[in-house]
């Protein structure tokens, strides 16, 4: 590592170290300017002036803090660039660090309508006096508890239906509880729960994120639960990879995505898919579950275990999967719509249903289908993995 640092230092103009501290910490000094990031970037395909390579070069030359606002917020942080990078330059991590650093000087936080909603929701949930009623969506016939071994972490899911009318997001939660009940688990759904802080962190609001993380870590540890299950790829990524960094002793709780839980339950024989689901489906890897958490197999195993289901892979899958077009609700523009159209056409050419494992992917894709595009798509439905699994229970 010291070698690469010195290489960059030599290449930089005299009198400057050439290595930006933010990059240095993130070990991004390995960039070889091959431009693979730019050509793999889904935003670049629409906005040719947007280039991760250029931003990294600028940062090398000591201009990391002069990254223009458009480049700062256009990045989806989907991680495609890092996946193809021969030296694994953590571009999303760099953008996150720069957003954190530069956001106080900007007059707008996130240039996107619903970004404002998510942003303010996180801020409200960071207030100490908050007194939530998070269980209204559950309905009859499903069992939840106040104390237990398994926590079902719902995140912002109970709030999404208030805004995104075209998606029944609470349906994912009901399906998750149905599955857990069928396997003999009565999950804890707590009113003390708060937003996971994903959007706050990725949009550069570290104070809010840390407040939320500490509040969540406290009640989770006090509850004495062994396992924590989430249906959201963003919550999963945050709880598993970011919380240990701020919440200290976090080892006692095993964080599972719903797909991992179902996979485990199927193996143990505690859950059986009895009813055939006669559909042709394809699977969209959410970036937070796939590239950011390296969980590609569990959702596929669950799909393969459902009787009657025909599972077809798209062309770009796993590390090379396409983004749903919006990262952390901070960008929604022409590039987003272009990406969604491309991805949905790809899915429609393979199957009649597209399965995702993240409620936010589903919202973003459904938004495109709801918005009556100029060129209407074939009849494609977006379903969540958890809902599909619940259907197979009968």
């Amino acid at each position: 590592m010291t070698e690469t640092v010195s290489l960059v230092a030599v290449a930089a103009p005299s009198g400057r170290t050439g290595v930006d501290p933010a990059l240095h910490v993130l070990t991004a000094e390995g960039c070889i300017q091959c431009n693979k990031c730019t050509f793999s970037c889904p935003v670049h395909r629409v906005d040719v002036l947007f280039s991760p390579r250029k931003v990294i070069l600028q940062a090398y030359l000591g201009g990391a803090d002069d990254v223009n606002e458009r480049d700062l917020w256009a990045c989806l942080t989907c991680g495609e660039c890092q996946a193809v990078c021969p030296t694994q330059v953590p571009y999303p991590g760099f953008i996150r660090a720069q957003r954190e650093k530069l956001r106080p000087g900007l007059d707008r936080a996130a240039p996107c309508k619903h970004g404002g909603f998510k942003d303010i929701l996180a801020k409200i949930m960071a207030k100490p006096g908050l007194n939530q009623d998070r269980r209204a969506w559950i309905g009859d016939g499903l069992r939840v508890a106040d104390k237990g071994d398994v926590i079902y972490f719902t995140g912002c899911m109970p709030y999404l239906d208030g805004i995104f009318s075209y998606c029944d997001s609470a349906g994912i939660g009901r399906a998750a509880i149905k599955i857990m009940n069928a396997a003999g688990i009565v999950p804890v759904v707590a009113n003390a729960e708060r937003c996971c802080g994903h959007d706050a962190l990725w949009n550069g609001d570290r104070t809010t994120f840390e407040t939320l993380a500490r509040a969540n870590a406290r009640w989770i540890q006090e509850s004495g639960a062994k396992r924590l299950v989430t249906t959201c790829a963003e919550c999963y990524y945050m709880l598993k990879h970011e919380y240990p960094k701020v919440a200290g002793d976090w080892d006692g709780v095993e964080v599972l995505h719903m797909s991992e839980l179902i996979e485990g339950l199927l193996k143990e024989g505690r859950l059986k898919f009895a009813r055939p689901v006669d559909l042709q489906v394809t699977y969209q890897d959410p970036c937070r579950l796939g590239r950011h958490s390296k969980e590609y197999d569990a959702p596929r195993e669950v799909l393969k275990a459902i009787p009657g289901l025909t599972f077809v892979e798209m062309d770009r899958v796993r590390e090379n999967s396409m983004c749903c077009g919006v990262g952390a609700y901070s960008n929604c523009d022409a590039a987003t719509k272009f990406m969604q159209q491309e991805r949905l056409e790809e899915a429609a050419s393979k199957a009649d249903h597209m399965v995702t494992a993240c409620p936010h992917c589903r919202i973003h894709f459904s938004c495109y289908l709801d918005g009556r595009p100029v060129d209407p798509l074939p009849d494609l439905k977006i379903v969540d993995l958890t809902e599909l699994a619940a259907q197979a229970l009968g």
Partner: protein
Amino acid sequence: MTFEPQVCAFACNWCGYSAADQAGAAKLEYPAGVKIVRLMCTGMMDPYYVLRAFEREFDGVLIIGCHIGSCHYGTGNVQARDEMARVSGVLNALGLGQGRLLVDAASASEGPRFAKLANEFAERVRKLGPSPLREVIAQ
């Protein structure tokens, strides 16, 4: 110190705000805690504005547009009503429900109606008490 409810009132340029203007000109009294934000149309009300008001420690949010059928832009007030109906679910879950949000109408010439709405809503919020999101609760 007695609790003085802070109400964020969003009023449309054509009806609600004119009514507030008229109430002022006619020297009708309404609580000082009612702060007015003028919008061109209540149809531009975003869930974000409502949540932002609560985040800024207001105790209630009042939205005053035109009467149904007389919106300057046609259907802005209907949009606002529908959008806010959905937001009330979010507010309930956040523990800010029980009527801390009200969507109503006052036409441009209804100054007394504006004062009446502001008074009644402030009274309702006073009974509900301070918002749980307030950092320091005034007693």
